[in-house]
């Protein structure tokens, strides 16, 4: 294994269990890679070298004693810094939270990954309080895209996308309220899974918009996503929104193929006139899947608008005490939106909740006629950092809200969605495509993602980072 940095989690575990690598060697390798590349990328806000080294030694000792190890044994992972990590303050991308009391325990999903043998190596940067699609952050610096460091990583799980895209870790956890896993996955050229709303408990994470917050994994291939997803599933009464559902075995069904699945391309709201980069990506994926049919998810504009208002009001209410006492300490790009959201009429919020229900029902009904829907993940490849407008159909539009144009309605409907990477040859940058299924059918989105991977839609290696630091 000479290219450990772009190795899959599955291969790393196999090597550790097979005695070809120790968990300590794996951790040392990735800590060295983080040390070398993070200064240019700014993906990590904390590196937990001591903790990771101790944990790796523990796993090696377990192996030496002949104990059975979990399906992620020896796999380094990192989490968006809104996940609680024992002995660290949970930043959620803000300067304000830096003075908070350090957490006394890890977030539940961290605990679940470590129970399966994975090793936490650090906390990752993010847009302030998750209200971001760009990866820019005034307090901690912008997170750079591994394909071109002058371009955005996407956000708000910016560090999670960049760290996997650059091979600093094979697996990360992010959060996705309106697209915050899927936008950076698209821009960084990796796979990202937003599960069904209510699938994963959010306990021990800093909230943004309770009605829409999801957690999920990001990785370099669909098998690693499935392994991680299977490891972190399971009901917990510690999150009121967590549904008590049977656990899926998505790893075992991954290779079942797409034969017999009814796959359609999203039309209507998701039409791609004026989005040439996204159109090329969706065209390629649909050609590969022999998908010629189209389907409209009705009332998507209304659903997206409802999600916009719900997010704005709930996020602003959460931060109202701090908006009153220290508004100057917010990132200017989020502060203005939070202030506006704190002032919106209650009737708008109530109506938005009503419309969200109505839209989600309509979206579910679409799956009577189709199993999987293909849609763009982002309107374009990663814009340059600092860009404030996006040209849509020849017209300049505000960039920040529109980067989530295609992901936000899927959050409103609560549907599972997996981003699969494609490469835009004209720009030389990656752009992702969403694979969407009915509620609770993460198995289907991962199956289609795997099939696409077999057809060549893989996470590629950024030219600037794929050499050096070869493991001996």
């Amino acid at each position: 294994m000479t290219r450990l940095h772009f190795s899959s989690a599955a291969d790393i575990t196999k090597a550790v269990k097979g005695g070809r690598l120790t968990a300590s060697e794996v951790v040392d390798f990735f800590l060295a890679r983080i040390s070398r590349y993070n200064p240019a990328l700014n993906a990590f806000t904390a590196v937990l070298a001591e903790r990771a080294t101790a944990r790796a030694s523990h796993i090696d000792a377990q192996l030496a004693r002949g104990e059975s190890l979990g399906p992620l044994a020896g796999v380094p992972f990192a989490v968006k810094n809104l996940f609680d990590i024992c002995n660290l303050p949970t930043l959620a991308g803000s300067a304000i939270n830096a003075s908070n009391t350090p957490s006394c325990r890890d977030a539940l999903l961290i605990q679940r990954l470590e129970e399966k043998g994975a090793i936490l190596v650090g906390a990752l940067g993010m847009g302030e309080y998750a209200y971001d699609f760009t990866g820019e952050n005034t307090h901690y610096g912008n997170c750079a895209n591994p394909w071109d460091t002058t371009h955005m990583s996407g956000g708000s799980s910016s560090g999670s996308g960049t760290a996997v895209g650059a091979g600093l870790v094979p697996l990360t956890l992010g959060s996705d309220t309106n697209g915050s896993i899927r936008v950076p996955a698209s821009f960084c050229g990796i796979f990202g899974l937003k599960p069904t709303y209510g699938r994963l408990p959010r306990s021990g994470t800093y909230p943004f918009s309770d009605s829409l917050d999801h957690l999920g994994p990001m990785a370099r291939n669909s098998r690693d996503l499935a392994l991680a997803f299977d490891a972190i599933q399971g009901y917990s009464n510690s999150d009121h929104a967590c549904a008590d559902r049977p656990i899926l075995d998505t790893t075992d069904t991954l290779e079942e193929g797409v034969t017999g699945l009814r796959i359609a391309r999203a039309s209507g709201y998701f039409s791609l006139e004026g989005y040439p980069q996204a159109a090329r990506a969706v065209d390629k994926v649909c050609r590969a899947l022999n998908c010629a049919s189209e389907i409209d998810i009705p009332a998507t504009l209304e659903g997206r608008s409802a999600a916009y208002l719900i997010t704005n009001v709930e996020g602003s209410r959460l931060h109202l005490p701090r908006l009153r006492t220290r508004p100057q300490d917010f990132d200017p790009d989020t502060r203005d939106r939070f202030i506006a959201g704190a002032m919106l009429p209650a009737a708008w919020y109530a109506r938005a909740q009503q419309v969200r229900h109505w839209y989600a029902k309509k979206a579910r009904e679409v799956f009577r006629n189709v199993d999987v829907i293909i849609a763009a993940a982002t309107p374009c490849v990663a814009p340059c950092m600092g860009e404030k407008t996006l040209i849509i159909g020849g017209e300049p539009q505000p960039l920040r809200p529109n980067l989530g144009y295609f992901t936000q309605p899927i959050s409103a409907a609560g549907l599972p969605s997996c981003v699969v990477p494609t490469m835009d040859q004209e720009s030389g940058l990656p752009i992702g495509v969403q694979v969407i299924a009915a509620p609770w059918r993460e198995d289907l989105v991962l199956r289609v993602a795997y099939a696409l991977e077999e057809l060549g839609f893989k996470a590629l290696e950024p030219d600037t980072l794929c050499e050096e630091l070869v493991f001996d």
Partner: protein
Amino acid sequence: MTNKIHLAPKAYLDLMETMIGIPVHEEWKVGVCLHLANAARMADIVECAELDPNSLELAGTFEPDRDNGLMEDTL
């Protein structure tokens, strides 16, 4: 789509700033007004959604088990 919401962002901000108790610096007001106008556009779209006008299901919070569970029942 009929525009039903008439919101003058600057006047609304001036009114609400004191009521909500957020000190909004002069230099932030352009940005806040931009977002208020954007939210008003979204509210307009949401208001025009063709829901049953007599529905008594108002602003119930989305519940994963109930809302998503219906999928299995209806298929």
